[in-house]
């Protein structure tokens, strides 16, 4: 599996667990605000989960305008 797909899958798994949504209902092109039903505070919570899981630091301004899991995975990959 290419690295970016692996990152995406791990993000989808983490998001599913954190926000209690079946993993099968999430895909890379989903708008995570809409699909997870989260606000910006909860998005920061997701960011913290990602930083802790991947042992990275991802400045929140780099997520400006990012709403889909695939682009989020690209941002995470750029910090690995």
């Amino acid at each position, binding site marked *: 599996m290419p690295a970016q797909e692996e990152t995406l899958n791990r993000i989808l798994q983490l998001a599913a667990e954190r926000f209690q949504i079946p993993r099968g209902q999430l895909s890379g092109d989903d708008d995570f605000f809409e699909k997870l039903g989260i*606000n*910006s*505070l909860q998005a*920061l*919570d997701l960011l*913290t989960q990602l930083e*802790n899981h991947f042992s990275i*630091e991802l400045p929140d*301004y780099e997520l400006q305008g990012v709403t889909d899991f695939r682009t989020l995975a690209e941002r995470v990959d750029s910090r690995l």
Partner: protein
Amino acid sequence: MSSFQGKTLSFSLADEVFELRLHRQPCNEIGSLALKELEGFVRTLEEQAVRAKALVVHSSMEAGFSAGADLRELYFGLQSLGKAERNAGVRDFLERIHRVFNRIDQVPLTTVAAVHGVVFGGGFELALTCDMIVADRTARFCFPELRLGLIPGFGGIPRLKRDLGNALVRDLLLTGRSINAGKAAAAGLVSQLVGPGHALRAARGIATQATKFDSRAAREAKRFIKPIPHLELEREIETFCALFDRPEVEAALLKFVESSQVQPYLP
């Protein structure tokens, strides 16, 4: 009176430990009522300090410790006022919150902020008044004020400078980004890092440890290591007030309050 149940916060004193619990929905925004209740808290804290050796500050709100100043109240509260009254109102609020924070900062007890989730703006500034910050891994620290055309106004810059290297202070202030608890611990801002949901337990452990020590020695140790940067704090109020009195800030506040998000915290 050594216990109080308010609308935004509650406090109690037991076994020589004060506990201040923040509980205003959604995330302990600090507005006029919170300020009034904080003023009541510091009065009791000072009156009863001889009966205590430690203070723990924490939040029972799921979203976090505190999202900072109540910007909605600030914006809407000022709309009906003229320019001079508006500026005077902001200055009065800042001077009152500085008095409260300075008194918590210098109270002769060992003070611990137990934080989780959102620790933003004024909430971050409240945590910085404490001798120690214990954070669980969900905590995020941020000074978002530059997004509004402002600087932190509740003592944030001088107190952050007191605790951290200037490079990270500049990064936080000038990017407005948030950092997680691990980064904050690595930088020396957080003294104990714990798993999700364990910050209060760890903070109570510190408080219990503090009750074992001689009050005078603890007080002298604190006085030795934790000076209050009064001149910079006063300068911060002046700078904030000068920045506040601009149309750019009013436009930024309007954008914030009109956001359809529950709280628009992403930059």
